[in-house]
Every structure is written in structure tokens, then in C-alpha cells.
């Protein structure tokens, strides 16, 4: 896919339904390292059915690499379904927590910026604030950029989670 600047963006978001069993995560992460695929982020959590988890994996590579990644994932016995969300219309979200330096004189400016990003202040310390922000990766990057001058003491990002828009579901044979 080419973005608006004509730069090829070969990042793909794979939505992967897996059996909710111990060891599945190490099977998947092992596959990526063993075959030399580049993983940008991986999140995992339970789904509407308790015996199935959903992984959202962001990976980059050309079409052939993505095809191999998909096929190799499908080969793992505990993987139920792999869908490449990139060509589809999907809702993508990520959550980040930023612990920012906040001397009393800087505090109101930080809060104003956070408000613009619809981020929340979830903890206030004597010299710091924790900001919680949800959104696409770009939005979080932008907030991080804005907070940098104040000094980011610590930060954590969840990695991307995604679902297809509309009525469509991740279908699989039961």
C-alpha cells in the first residue's frame, strides 16, 4: 500500500484467533523469531468465547513475506483463523500511559494538551502526572511528541488492537 506521500507502507495488521491454551504465545513468538519475520507489536487477550483468544499482530514485510507469515501461522495447530486486516476497513486502537514531569508551573499546560487529545489524567503526584490516552498509533505518537519537552519519565503502550468495521466477523469453521 502506498500512503499519501507515495511511500510504500508494508505494515500489516493480522487478527489471529487462537486456542486459549498455555504455550500458544510461545509457539507464535517462536515462529516469528525462527523464520526471521519482523514483529512490530503483538497483543493478546480473551474473546467473547472463553476458549478462544485473539492476538493482534502488527508485522511488516512485502506481500510474499506476509503471505508466508499467514501460512506459517495457519500451520500452527492451535491457530484457528488468521485475517489480514490491512486491506479491510477496521477500527484500530492502542492505549498508552505516560508519566510526565509536572512541576506545578507546567501542570496546567500539560492538562490542556491532554484535553486536546481527549486523554485523561489518571494519577497526580507531587512532581508528575500519568496521562492515559487511547487512539490510533499516530495520535499516541503525536501526544508523546508534545509531552517530550516536559520530560517523559516512563511510558507504556499496549500495542494495537483491531476489529473489522460493520457487520462482518472473523469467520471460522467450528
Amino acid at each position, binding site marked *: 500500500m502506498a500512503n499519501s506521500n507515495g511511500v510504500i507502507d508494508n505494515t500489516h495488521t493480522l487478527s489471529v484467533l487462537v*486456542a486459549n491454551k498455555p*504455550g500458544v504465545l510461545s*509457539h507464535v513468538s*517462536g515462529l516469528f523469531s525462527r523464520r526471521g519475520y519482523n514483529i512490530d507489536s503483538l497483543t493478546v487477550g480473551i474473546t467473547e468465547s472463553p476458549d478462544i483468544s485473539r492476538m493482534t499482530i502488527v508485522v511488516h514485510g512485502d506481500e510474499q513475506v506476509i503471505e*508466508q507469515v499467514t501460512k506459517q501461522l*495457519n*500451520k500452527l*495447530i492451535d491457530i484457528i*483463523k488468521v485475517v489480514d486486516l490491512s486491506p479491510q476497513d477496521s477500527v484500530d486502537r492502542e492505549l498508552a500511559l505516560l508519566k510526565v514531569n509536572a512541576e506545578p508551573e507546567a501542570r496546567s499546560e500539560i492538562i490542556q494538551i491532554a484535553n486536546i487529545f481527549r486523554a485523561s489524567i489518571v494519577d497526580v503526584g507531587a512532581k508528575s502526572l500519568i496521562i492515559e490516552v487511547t487512539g490510533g498509533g499516530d495520535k499516541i505518537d503525536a501526544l508523546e511528541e508534545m509531552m517530550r519537552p516536559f520530560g517523559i519519565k516512563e511510558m507504556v503502550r499496549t500495542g494495537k488492537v483491531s476489529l473489522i468495521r460493520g457487520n462482518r466477523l472473523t469467520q471460522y*469453521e467450528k
Partner: protein
Amino acid sequence: MSTNGFRRLSGAKVLIESLGHEGVDTIFGYPGAAVLQIYDELYDSSIHHILVRHEQAAAHAADGYARATGRTGVCLATSGPGATNLVTGIATAYMDSIPLVALTGQVPTSIIGNDVFQEADITGITIPITKYNNLVKNPQDLPRLIKEAFHIASTGRPGPVLLDIPKDILTADIDYSYPESVNIVSYKPTFSGHPLQIKKACTLIEKAERPVLLIGGGAILANAAEEVRQLAETIMAPVTTTLMGKGAFPEDHPLALGMLGMHGTRYANYAIIDSDLLIAVGARFSDRVTGKIQSFAPNAKVIHIDIDPAELGKNVKVDVPIVGDAKSILKKLTTTLKVKLPKTAAWNQKIILWKKEYPLDYEKDCSELKPQCVIERINELVEDGIFVTEVGQHQMWAAHYIRCKSPRTFISSGGLGTMGYGFPAAIGAKVGCPDKDVWNIAGDGSIQMNIQELATAMENNVPVNVAILNNGYLGMVRQWQELFYNRRYSYTNMTGQPDFVKVAEAYGAVGIEVNRKEDVKDAILAASKSDRPVFLDFKVAREENVFPMVPAGASINEFVEYRRP
């Protein structure tokens, strides 16, 4: 039997009964503390247990048994070092897609993770070399997990499955009834080929003037040898096989090209380069087969039939991929084809000329005992044989000069290239096929990697024959040193070799030393007749090279032209 159809049995008893349900008649194993409960059940079980002398041999023997019989091989080892010793054997089976179930003992669930005596995370260790593995955590899951292990190992693209069973699971009481079927939501291999793809393949085949069939081990695993022959004869296309595909097409057939690739025949490689259509069946286009991938079959359209979708388009661009079972797809292909008069006459003429011009050859008019000559004699003299190999020069010579007529008669570690595989695999093959004359073709290096299995062969009365092509070198490595490292034979000259005849005799087996060409025949016949294991120590020419040879990374028609200075 209780009223609900279940019986109360110990985990170990459940395991043995379940193996019975899967039709397992033989397992290869080695006892230890964590599996005592299983061995106690085996003590009066009808399952034949072959006690090996090293767990690696148990895995290889189960693998050889599987390759020779087509049934799933089973090996058993204790926790910790027993389990880790299986690793090379499991990896060997994984690379060659062999159905194998490896059972390992484990320390009790309550203390897993505490670095207990003889504890190893074998499910963690074997993730990348098993098709599937599982640590049994709940005794009640045991029957289902055994059923799944055998199902997964033997269906789709076969492969090894490991089941790690903690000691307390083996002693626990289980409500037992063996599940009749398996339903794994996430595992439904595609079996029948897509009709549209088969039609597309037919169109390509009908147009082709220079087609080649490239047959891999998948054709043997799918029991598709007959279908390969029918397709080849219908379209009059020459057939080349990979090392793993050897036996899938009779090598005395006029359409046979022998093996292709790094040590392929010249005519097979030339045919690939010149072909306009490649029909690959159950082959994965390994680097040893393709050489430089950019110049592999440059003018050919490619039809690729494989049960593993991930193999299609992995290494070579494919025009018509067909996922599914090779046997049924080939059958459909042959019956759907419209052309009954193939356009391949000129092509076959060209190949006949290549075969005449570039036959497999070696120096015959010399006094030395040539290793190729030994294998040619074995090929001539052994009837109804299964030929197993180790890894190295002798393996390639066996690939050249053993002319297989039927599947499951050539057994070799292709993907992993495991030295030490052949002898235990031959024992497994002989146990599975006691009426066959089983030969392990070995080098003096490889045989010493599992030579202790002489005791296994003796103890269990398994009369396999081992032809050691003894040149006192790690021959294949020496050959590379000669060709690419200025003849600097760094640590390949093995001067400390034992007297193999005495080694055999020390175990109570037969040892025969052969130094002269004239004695080869009698020695082979004597071995075939022997009801004890035989070591034949052929003292062969020391610095013989395997040719043809294509250097690693070169195009497969760029052969090494080498004359010794």
C-alpha cells in the same frame, strides 16, 4: 466396566490401552525414573518394546519404522536427559515430515519449574521441531491428547508430535474410554484438490512440450507412486526425484531421470533447466534441489501439488498451486487430461541423448576398491531390499547407484542430514518389515555416531546389514576441503578408527572385512544370508569424490569440472 461406559484405570494403563487402540505394535524406548509406571505396564503388555542403547536411536528407529511401514512410529523416553536425547531424532523426522509420536516422562506437575532432578522443559525445547506438542496437566485429558497426537502426526503433512506426561498423571486414576473421533477446530487439512486448479493444471500440461515431473517425499507419504507413474506415462514426461522422493518412481523406467540437484544426474538437471513445464509433487524446493533459485527452471511454468499450503510459493514462484493429497489429485489430473497423444517425443529424444552423453560414471579400470562399485554390487545382489543410509558421500553414492523400484525402500535423513541416523533407522525398518533384506549403507564416520545400537540389534534379533564404506575420512567434508579449501584436510582424517570387524564380534554380531573387488560379491551374499547383524568393512579408495556436483549457490547446470592435480 462401570455403568457410564468408563473404566477406572491408571494413567500409565490408559496410555498402553490407547496405544493398542491406535494399532501400535512396537515402541522403541529407554526406561528411567519418570516413566517407571509405563514400564511396569509394558512388562506384561502385548506391545513389543525394543530397548535401545541411546534415546536418540529410539527416535531414529521409530522414524525408520514409520518410513518403511507407513505407520506412525512411537518412541518413549524418560524425563530430562532421556527427553533431550530424543531431540535430534525428532528434528530429523520433522524435516522429512515423518509421522512420529514421541512420549516423554516428566517430573510431577506439582514441582514442574523447580529445576527438579531430571527435569527439562521438553515441550518448550521441541516447539520448533514438532508439528505439535503438549504437556499433559490434567489426567482426564490423557486419552484425548493421545488420540490427537496420533491424528495430528499422521494426517495432513505428517510430522512428529511429542506428548510430555508427568509422573503423577501416570499414577492418577482416570475414567477411561478411548475417544472414537477427533475434532480440533483449528486443524482441518485440505485433502481434495480444488477442481478449478486441477483444470488449470490440465491446460498447462496439454500445451507443454518439455514437461518434467519433480517428485518429492510427499508422493511417498501420500502413497502416490502408482499415480505418479500413470501421469508420467500418460503425458510421456521424464521424472526426476529428490532424495526424499527416491522410490516414488521406478528408477529402471525409461522415463526415470534419477535424482536432481547438487549431486543430481546431469541429465536431470539439464532437463529441469530446459523444461517448459515443471510438475512438482510433494517436494519443497530445498536449496540442495534448486541451487541458485533465480536460474532454476527459468523457462518453465510451475504446477505445485502439496498438502502443506505454506510450501506453495515459499521458494519458487508457482503458476498453478494445488493444495491437497497428492494421490487423489494426480488421479484426477490423469483422468481429466484430454491430450492422449503427447507432444513430448522430441523432448524425450533429447533426454535420451543427454543420458548417453552424461551417464553416472566412475573409474572402473583400476585395482582399488571403489565405493561406487560396492554400492552397484549391493544394488545388483540384494533382492527385496530396503536401503537405509547415514549422511555423507556414501549417501549420495547410494542415491546414485541404488536403483529403487518401489516406494519405502530408500530411507535417508534428507532435510536435517543427521549422521548416525542410518543404523537405528535400519533397525526400525527391519523390525517393521522383517521379511525385507535391510541394508544400512554407512561411512566410517557416521556409523560411529550410533554404533552402540549393535547391542539393540543383537538383543532383539534384528539382523540388519551394515555396509561401511571405510575411507578413514569424513569423506564429504574432505571433498569440500579438497574442492574449496585448497586440500587443507582439517580434522577430517580419522586415524583412530576401530577395527569394525572386532567391534561387531565384540557384540556377538558378524564382521567381514573386504579389501578387494573380487571379494565384494561373496561378502554381500553372506551378509544377506546371515541371521545375525553383519558389519561389512569395505576398505575403499580413500579420496574418491562424489560427482556430478554443483557448488552451493550455483545454478544446477553449472557442474564442478575438477581434475585432481
